[in-house]
């Protein structure tokens, strides 16, 4: 079985300040982990992915995430928020070696204040 918990439903930051979106997971297998972003009235776009290579993963638009097995976490960060980062962010866990569907977190809405 696997699950994912996004610890904040809404995060608000000022433009130019750091972003931290938190995600914890559980998985019976070696997981693959993803962050997807959804801008208003748009589809979902892959931000970055962890697939058992380097634990610090760099994605698009300056985002990165660190896989911490001991903490079962995969938090998303960005050093400096931009207005265009305002969107919904979803953390996803998949177990490629298992036979269960991947699992979406409930999402974190990021607001960026000018």
């Amino acid at each position: 079985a696997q699950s994912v918990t996004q610890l904040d439903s809404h995060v608000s930051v000022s433009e130019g300040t750091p972003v931290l979106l938190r995600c914890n997971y559980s998985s019976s297998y070696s997981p693959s982990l993803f962050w997807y972003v959804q801008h208003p009235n748009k589809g979902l776009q892959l931000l970055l992915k962890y697939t058992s290579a380097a634990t610090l993963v760099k994605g698009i638009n300056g985002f990165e995430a660190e896989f911490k097995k001991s903490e079962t976490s995969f938090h998303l960060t960005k050093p400096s928020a931009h207005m265009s980062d305002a969107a919904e962010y979803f953390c996803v866990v998949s177990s490629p070696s298992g036979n269960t569907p991947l699992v979406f977190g409930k999402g974190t809405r990021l607001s960026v204040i000018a």
Partner: protein
Amino acid sequence: NAGVTQTPKFRILKIGQSMTLQCTQDMNHNYMYWYRQDPGMGLKLIYYSVGAGITDKGEVPNGYNVSRSTTEDFPLRLELAAPSQTSVYFCASENRVNTGELFFGEGSRLTVL
């Protein structure tokens, strides 16, 4: 490379009507999913399939049916449409063999009046 193709993009239904949302992928992915997303909410899994001939219920299957006769196609059938089924529907396929990355269709906005 088309990826995941989902049709129609928009549809208005009357209560009690039926329709099928089409989803096709050309990446030879075994895993496919149907999600619904209500306004301001996250994604809820309706049905999924781990390969041709195999389907299983997700979190919110009531009022829907699926079939998977080929690897490429995974249509979602709505029987007796109800206002509660007004939502945006996303089809996705998963590259389970390699990375588990999801590839999404563009979404279908369905309104039931």
